[in-house]
């Protein structure tokens, strides 16, 4: 799975982009976030307050209940501030 991080999520996680082997237990965005929270200090900090974490799967805004699979591109970011 390709994962991208933007803005302060990128800064806290300490990484802009990575390709991971998705654990078989992870089938939704919510489960992916739980897994991220246990990957180390930076990730724990990035995902500490999930109320301000937004997610896109394959470049579409989705909710935390959205399914994820190994071939997806998943992006984590704060609420957008376009315009």
């Amino acid at each position, binding site marked *: 799975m390709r994962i991208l991080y*933007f803005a302060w999520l990128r800064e806290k996680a300490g990484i802009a982009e990575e390709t991971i082997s998705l654990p078989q237990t992870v089938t939704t965005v919510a489960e992916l976030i739980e897994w991220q929270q246990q990957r180390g200090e930076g990730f724990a900090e990035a995902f500490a307050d999930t109320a301000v974490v937004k997610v896109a799967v394959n470049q579409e805004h989705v909710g935390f209940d959205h399914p994820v699979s190994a071939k997806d591109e998943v992006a984590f970011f*704060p*609420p957008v*501030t*376009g315009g």
Partner: protein
Amino acid sequence: MIKVQAEDFDVGRELENLSSGNLGVGGVSCFIGLVRDMAGDESIQAMTLEHYPEMTEKALAKIEAEARTRWPLEEILIIHRYGRLEPGDRIVFVAAASAHREAAIEACHFLIDWLKTQAPFWKLEETPDGGQWVDARSSDDKAAGRWVTAGRGAEKDPDAAE
């Protein structure tokens, strides 16, 4: 038409291109967003816009398509810059051309409101205290929420207004 670019743009030329040769255009409405030198009480030296390129293209195309289903429009233009910008610099330009002024004005308003909450951009402000990420504002969510009612020329919900 959608343009995502680091470079500045020529507003006069863009507006000219939007309606030139199309004698059915009766009104063109546009909005230009600029970097201010202040955010609240804090002075801003510069603002860096980060974005998610593959998603930006998709999100802007979706916003354009949505506007076209709601209003009878001849042309739409969205230009969004990224990278480091300074106070006074243009950030974003949206424009809508229609036979009728009301359609052009409402569509333009819709485009900028939806960009604020749908387009994957993030802003890092350089202040005397260091860099700070701009928070999404709940007023922007409300402004975008006014347009949720589907249908052409849908009325804004006054209860949801700022």
